[in-house]
């Protein structure tokens, strides 16, 4: 789907630094207006409609407000007694037996027929997508175990889904992207990668353990992951570039929060999807890092490279993603780590560390030495002085994310230049220093006026899903 431009005409002209709509390229953008007042006075300044859509005083459907009264919701056919009243009690009983209230009793029958488009995975994908359709039913689920509302194969009277690991990975990736994930990777757990799981939850302090149990369990003190759950699915959720550019103001915090919220609900969708296929899927009880290290699993799954931010930088979206992980017993084909020259670029760049208002980020080369007890050793990293960052959050009454905003990899792909430079960085590190200088000369990394955010015409979630923008 093609989205509108992320800018309205007014902002476009403001950005260009032109006072009217008479010069050069701006003329192309404003063919019907003579000055800014006309633009702002126009309904288009309020709402963008395609040119063939006209606003009318009355809707195209005829309404007689005198005849209409408020309607009783129980009389809609979604209310089962009302449905019975409409089609007759006997027929309603017959349909309920074969289809349940909304067709769910027919799921098993349809899947057994195994027809194209109606296979087990199709049903599971749909169930995962719609689990939150009735939020009133899900008030008290444990995020670690998932909503557990989708019918399992056992409940449907069908065998659990079986596929080759490669097929399963493809299937999970397709479902996750549909649910809202930007990029997806998989890690097969071994004695090393298990170390990326926290021993205790950061927030409720519950112990996270692996055990020879059949089912995942959660008690008041523990979360138990079955040993046969050997695969971690890692996925990223995008944040809005225009919001990140308005760091450290609430506009930037909003896109962080939205991505975290989306990540949580995407994980729930995945849990329901895998449950319907007959597998367990354990997610984080608190999406801000209660189960495992996001950066660690992101690196191992090849979602991105560990950077000077001591966070991931992805080749697709730079650092402006949030990274999530779930663990499952569905066999998956692991994805390999990646090298796009980004970590090497960090060595000479240092733009984030220079811009950091609290000097939290390291200006030195990567080191095995941790900065404090808050760091987990064993990685040659740009360890950050994290408490300083959180002091800033508390003092500023918000958070920060300036480092993400100024990172040279925080680019949209609206100009060819970025892809060209990214390929140069990946293949020719000798130019890294010069490219960092060019990033400054071209004016990138300058934080934007937070007030101007309200004048933008952004696509849903603030990013165009058809591009990296």
């Amino acid at each position, binding site marked *: 789907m093609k989205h509108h*431009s*992320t*800018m309205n005409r007014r*902002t*476009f002209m403001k*950005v*260009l*630094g032109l006072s009217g709509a008479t010069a050069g*390229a701006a003329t*192309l953008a404003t063919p019907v207006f003579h000055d800014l007042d006309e633009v702002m006075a126009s309904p288009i300044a309020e709402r963008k409609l395609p040119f063939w859509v006209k606003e009318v005083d009355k809707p195209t459907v005829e309404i007689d407000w005198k005849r209409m009264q408020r309607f009783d919701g129980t009389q809609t056919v979604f209310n089962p007694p009302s449905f019975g009243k409409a089609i007759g009690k006997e027929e309603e009983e017959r349909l309920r037996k074969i289809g349940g209230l909304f067709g769910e009793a027919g799921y098993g029958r349809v899947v057994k027929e195994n027809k194209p488009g109606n296979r087990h995975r199709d049903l599971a994908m749909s169930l995962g997508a719609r689990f939150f359709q009735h939020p009133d039913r899900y008030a008290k689920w444990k995020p670690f175990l998932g909503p557990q509302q989708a019918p399992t194969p056992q409940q449907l009277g069908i065998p659990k889904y079986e596929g080759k690991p490669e097929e399963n990975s493809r299937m999970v990736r397709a479902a996750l992207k549909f649910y809202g994930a930007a990029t997806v990777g998989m890690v097969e757990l071994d004695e090393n990668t298990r170390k990326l799981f926290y021993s205790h939850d950061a927030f409720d302090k519950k112990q996270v353990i692996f055990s020879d149990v059949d089912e995942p369990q959660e008690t008041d003190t523990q979360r138990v992951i079955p040993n046969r759950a050997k695969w971690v699915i890692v996925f990223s959720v995008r944040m809005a*570039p*225009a919001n990140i*550019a308005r760091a450290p103001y609430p506009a930037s915090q909003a896109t962080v929060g939205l991505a975290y919220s989306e990540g949580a609900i995407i994980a729930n969708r995945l849990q329901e999807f895998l449950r319907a296929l007959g597998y367990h899927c354990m997610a984080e009880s608190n999406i801000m890092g209660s189960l495992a290290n996001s950066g660690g699993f992101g690196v191992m799954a090849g979602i991105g490279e560990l950077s000077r931010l001591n966070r991931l930088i992805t080749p697709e979206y730079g650092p402006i993603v949030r990274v999530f992980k779930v663990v499952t017993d569905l066999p998956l084909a692991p994805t390999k780590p990646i090298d796009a020259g980004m970590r090497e670029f960090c060595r000479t760049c240092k733009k984030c560390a220079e811009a950091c208002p609290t000097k939290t980020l390291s200006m030195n080369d990567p080191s095995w030495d941790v900065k404090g007890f808050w760091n987990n050793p064993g990685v040659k990293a740009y360890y950050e002085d994290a408490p300083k960052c959180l002091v800033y959050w508390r003092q500023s009454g918000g958070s920060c994310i300036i480092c993400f905003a100024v990172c040279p990899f925080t*680019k*949209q792909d*609206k*100009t*060819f*230049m970025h892809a060209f430079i990214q390929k140069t960085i990946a293949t020719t590190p000798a130019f890294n220093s010069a490219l960092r200088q060019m990033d400054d*000369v*071209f*004016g*990138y990394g*300058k934080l*934007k006026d937070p007030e101007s955010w309200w004048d933008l015409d952004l696509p849903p979630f603030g990013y165009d899903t058809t591009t990296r*923008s």
Partner: protein
Amino acid sequence: MWWFVFGLVLGACILALLRWKGAKKIRMTWYEWVMGIASLILILLVVQNFIGSVAEEEPRAAWMGVLFLGIPAVILGVLAVRLPLQRQVRSRA
């Protein structure tokens, strides 16, 4: 839409240039063709970078693109037109 309009304008310009070249019986060497085509590619890149950078809210990057790519484009374009013209004038003289 931008690219559609730009394509129309560019196509018309190229057509006019080729007609003018034919009418004036101007002969171009291979390296003049290379300079002309390189200039055209650079102009396209300038326009793409300008529109893209403005859409990204990066006006400085837009104008720096004009500077870094536009100047070589103009130089190459002028050379591609001037060199065969001068040669023609010289041969007539």
